[in-house]
């Protein structure tokens, strides 16, 4: 029963070709529906199978199947669960996403067929990576996932997509080659030091005899594995392909890549980490992992602070979280491993959710540019809520689950007396929180139809004057106009209120109306009142930012509205999961995480 169970994880493969074939036919009606259906069934069934297998492994213990070809222990089960849930979200979200893309004319039926073709090859490759016993076959499968995901990254066929794909392929293949070198060296060590066996690269065999492997060889091997698989995992400074690839691909694919594919490569690092710890001693690999972890967290900060592309922001966040996981594994101890296991799961769900939300935002506003998106809470309140929930989740804020695992990572760092690592991590995570929240607020809050004037000193002025309560703070200033000249009102009340006691001219009782009298404002703008504040001068030396008014497209076709609603509906369950897991981690989940921790040790 077990072997058969696991082999049925791969029902997608034939369906891949079915989907492709269907796209070539010329069915008259509902062709896209059929293709989508054909392409979705496979992953959904695979999800169910994977979850069942994972549950089985967690409750009944490690499983060896197919005469040693397949091996599942707690770590594999965790990865299975992660890939299962993330791919489920990705394929379900693909449906409204692709529907709208087709309605906008961005993709054709044939492209749809190719999408599901490659997707149905990618998902079984990912599953297979984590369930095979031989480390060599794992490598082959990881390389296969790279090759199969490349067309998905370049799906849109634009110049940027092509560029992203090229960089992805080149850098990933280089990395993978180095990982192969590491595996080769492990194989050398295995052949040299261990009794001859047909299973020399098998995980079970290696783990049993890890202590007798040559330390020098294993050190070298681990270096290559860390750099090699680290490239695909997204550890700095090998992560450079990640922002391009994850931002140019369609959002469901980005979710899948960030949530599942990075974890597959991480799986490789984790397996070799266990081997190296037994062979060489814990300090070597732990030290390297801590260094790469902290480097990954720190590296992304300059790129997140000044970021204009929403999905690139999320991609950098993935790099940071992979750094956290690797840091947790490096720190070790019961707490460290538990936290790493929990974080693998929490981050995958949170990041996949956030990418889908980003997909929704880009679908509605037709741009990924953060500077052009404003006022989501007004135009699409539920989406705004999801955006906030996702941002808070991804940055590790209660009440979401990522806070729990990040807190445990810091606690673990303290528990194993890595005070500086913990302090540094806390500080860096705070900065990342600040930058992501800043961008989220810029997009979510504000008015949906805010008109941003070209710079002549005035920044955002709300179009509706009635409601704002002027924030005039502080200074006194008054105009001594010559007699018979009307008193000018300088209503620059909406200047960014940084300094207290900003200048503000008074209006005499003759001045008409409220502060935001538009006529008065226009008069002020025409330069009768020049304000020589230093901050104003600095603002004027910056190049004028001509930003477009973001129009909320009121009239949407019925199908688009349906798709919008379906997409939001799909996103409800993940956000609830994030919330629930943040407040309460069930004890069985804790047990399972402990099992994974035991494996990682």
């Amino acid at each position: 029963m077990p072997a058969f169970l696991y082999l049925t994880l791969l029902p997608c493969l034939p369906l891949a070709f079915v989907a492709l074939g269907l796209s070539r036919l010329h069915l008259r009606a509902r062709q896209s529906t059929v293709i989508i259906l054909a392409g979705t069934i496979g992953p959904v069934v695979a999800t169910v199978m994977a979850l069942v297998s994972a549950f089985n492994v967690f409750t009944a213990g490690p499983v060896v199947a197919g005469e040693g070809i397949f091996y599942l222990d707690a770590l594999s089960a965790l990865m299975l669960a992660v890939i299962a849930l993330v791919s489920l979200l990705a394929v379900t979200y693909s449906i409204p996403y692709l529907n709208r893309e087709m309605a906008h004319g961005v993709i054709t039926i044939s492209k749809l067929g190719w999408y599901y073709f490659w997707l149905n090859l990618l998902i079984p490759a990912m599953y297979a990576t984590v369930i095979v016993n031989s480390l060599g076959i794992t490598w082959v499968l990881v390389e296969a996932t790279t090759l199969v995901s490349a067309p998905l990254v370049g799906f849109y066929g634009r110049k940027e997509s092509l560029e992203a794909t090229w960089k992805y392929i080149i850098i990933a293949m280089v990395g993978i080659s180095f990982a192969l070198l590491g595996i080769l060296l492990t194989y050398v060590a295995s052949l040299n030091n261990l009794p001859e066996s047909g299973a020399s690269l098998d995980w079970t065999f290696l783990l049993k005899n890890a202590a007798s492997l040559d330390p020098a060889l294993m050190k070298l091997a681990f270096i290559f594995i860390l750099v090699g698989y680290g490239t695909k995992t997204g550890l700095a400074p090998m992560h450079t392909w990640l922002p391009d690839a994850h931002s140019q691909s369609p959002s469901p694919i980005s979710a899948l890549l960030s949530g599942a594919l990075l974890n597959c490569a991480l799986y490789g690092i984790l397996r070799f980490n266990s081997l190296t710890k037994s062979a060489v001693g814990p300090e070597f690999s732990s030290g390297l992992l801590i260094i790469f972890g902290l480097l990954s967290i720190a590296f992304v900060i300059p790129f997140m602070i000044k970021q204009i592309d929403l999905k690139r922001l999320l991609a950098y966040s993935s790099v940071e979280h992979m750094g956290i996981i690797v840091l947790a594994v490096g720190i070790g101890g019961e707490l460290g491993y538990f936290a790493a296991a929990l974080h693998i799961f929490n981050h995958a769900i949170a990041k996949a959710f956030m990418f889908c939300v980003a997909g929704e935002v880009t679908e509605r506003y037709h741009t990924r540019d953060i500077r052009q998106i404003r006022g989501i809470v007004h135009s699409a309140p539920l989406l705004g809520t999801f955006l906030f929930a996702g941002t808070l989740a991804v940055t590790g804020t209660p009440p979401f689950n990522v806070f729990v695992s990040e807190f445990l990572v810091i606690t673990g760092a303290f528990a194993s007396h890595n005070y500086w690592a913990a302090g540094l991590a806390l500080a860096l995570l705070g900065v990342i929180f600040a930058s992501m929240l800043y961008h989220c607020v810029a997009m979510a809050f504000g008015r949906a139809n805010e008109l941003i004037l070209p710079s002549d000193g005035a920044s955002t002025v709300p179009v509706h004057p009635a409601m704002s309560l002027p924030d005039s703070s502080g200074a006194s200033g008054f105009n001594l106009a010559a007699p018979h000249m009307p008193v000018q009102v300088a209503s620059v009340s909406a200047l960014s209120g940084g300094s207290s006691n900003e200048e503000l001219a008074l209006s005499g009782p003759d001045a008409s109306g409220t502060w935001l009298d538009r006529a008065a404002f226009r008069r002020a703008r025409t330069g009768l009142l020049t304000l020589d504040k230093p901050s104003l001068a600095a603002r004027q030396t910056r190049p004028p930012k001509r930003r477009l008014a973001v129009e909320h497209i009121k009239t949407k076709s019925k199908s688009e509205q349906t798709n919008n609603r379906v997409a939001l509906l799909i996103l409800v369950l993940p956000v609830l999961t994030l919330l629930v897991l943040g407040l309460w981690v069930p004890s069985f989940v804790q047990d399972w995480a402990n099992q994974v921790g035991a494996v990682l040790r």
Partner: protein
Amino acid sequence: MIFLATSLLYISFACYAFGILSAFCFSLWPTRAILFGYTFATIGSVTGLAAAILFLREPQSQRLELFTAFRFTNAGFEILIDPLAAFFLLIICLGGSLVSIYAIGYSQDYIKQGKNVSLLVAGYNFFFITMLAVVLANNAFMFLVAWELMSLVSYFLVSFEHEKKEVRKAGVIYIVTTHFGTAFITASFLLLFLAAGQNLSFDAFRAGTGAGFSDAARNAVFLLALIGFGTKAGLMPMHFWLPRAHPVAPSHVSALMSGVMIKTAIYGLVRISFDLLGGRTVGAGTSSMVTVGADAGRVLPPSWWGILLLIVGLVSALLGVLYALVEVDLKKLLAFSSIENMGIICLGLGVALIFYSLPLPNAPALTVLALFAAFFHLLNHTVFKSLLFMGAGAVLHATHTRNLEQLGGLIKSMKWTALFFLAGCLAISALPPFNGFISEWLTFQALLGLVSYGPELWHKVIGLLTLGGLSLTGALAATTFIKAFGTGFLAQPRSQAAVHAHEVSKTMRFGLGLAAALTALLGLGAAGVLALLKPALEQWTGAGSSQAVNPLWSLPSSNLANSGNTNVSGGAGNLNLLILLLPLVLIIVGWGIARLLGGKNRRAIDETWACGNTLKPSMEYNSISFIKPLRRVFQFVLLPFREVKITYRIEPYFVERIEYQSGIKSLLNSDTFRLARHFLSYLNTEIKVIQNGSVRLYLSYILVTLLILLVFTR
């Protein structure tokens, strides 16, 4: 009794939850959402208040285990209701009772603006739940979750009017600053976690910080906690979010934030320094730890903690009141005044901590005195700051402006608001018979105690300096509020907005009146407050040590020379009342005499000479002119700027236009900071070259990494 108290507490939580529920149920009927939501909040607050009072009467602590989140670190949700927690429960629910009714009237404005008020109401209720969870938490995990949730909810409440850029900016500054503060608090708790044998429960912390806990770690915990909680409390130099966030929030939220939320930071500080770092194990101590005879087993903190707290408090108080003095935005003025009052509370706490660390025989009594000063001031501040913010909100509602330079004459159009606001101003200026007087008096007494009984010279010196500073603060605070009330309410209206002001609705007036009445009551009934707070004050110094404290006489020197000699008690209550009412009586008698002897009022109506011009209300003495002399005196601190720009028609005789601009630049916008920001921005742009798009560069990173690893790790 305990059962009643816990039931009331449960009912309180349930009411808040119902508040949230009703807010969402009635989201399509905003008026009803407001009514139900805030009514539930009021009921919840009142029951919570009753529960708190009952808990304070029963000095045994109550424990409750809700559930454990993670077994092996013992991260869970446990509740502990000891007298300290009960006191802060009292504070929170008192704030809620005062503000919630007012909020009903205030939130009506937002319906007209088309905003989603049910979110406001729901957030308001949830805010209370999180604050209660913070003060009741007995586990570091629960504390941190509740703390961050509290910050998050308050952020959303502050950003309620997010259409304005200023609000968004203030909100982001607030939540980022508070997040960093939480990082410090987390570090502090995790050091305690280590000491407690990897257990996150506060009980384990108490047990683990005994004599075996290293000095360096103890100091680190205190410093980290001071920075972290100080950020939330608004102590300098971490205060800069406060004057930005409190003005832009809806006024009832500002009242809660100033009146209640920043107090939870004080709760955290007290909890860590007195309670968690106290330790309960007996044993051989390290050099700075001595066990006191009557209180064997308690580990003494180093006395420089108290000094540091004192200094931080003093700086916050002085600078806070200075910035409040020159502030023209009414709510920003109140925000700076909050910083000042937080400073005063920290003064009291600092003195208490100093005496707590000294092995003197009369130290317990002095500690209790100082703690009473701090706690009473805390209580008073909740009441009068809520009152003042509610008043400012009423003014904002009526005139749509917060700028004092445009107000004026409101005493005629908003009689009741003016009266209640006046009560608040008098209270905060520490004038009898209001409550502020008692608590500032007590703080003075505590400082005098430091001077008299502090064993070292530098205790006395610092005490004297602080006394001077506190007196200055008090005087400046009085001036500030004279300015606020005078410019805002008296004389003629300076703008059309003030001309068209009208009295606010009944609910708002009721809230204001309730708070005003409470300020008077607390002032007159200080002895009662002492009796109520006794368990909280004596929690660490042992029962009975507050016998020697009397609210008005405070330092019976003959009594404190030998502890245990208790003969001054609250029996002198009647005398206290008389002393307090004496000024009032004198005023009334004096006025009577003036009326009798002065004869009829004579009124002459004539034109005021105005140098040939027509007088306009804008020519009145306004707040800046009132403050100008003081601004000059303190210009080395405030660093005001002034710019004059003259436009000529025919130079240099015919002037077309003169622009005059002056103000105070906040430190964050000063040139140095702007330079630093530009520099960081420049650095950022330079660093981003790392990802410049060249795939060869990216590959070279891999090559270099590999080479470094190969060469250096063999």
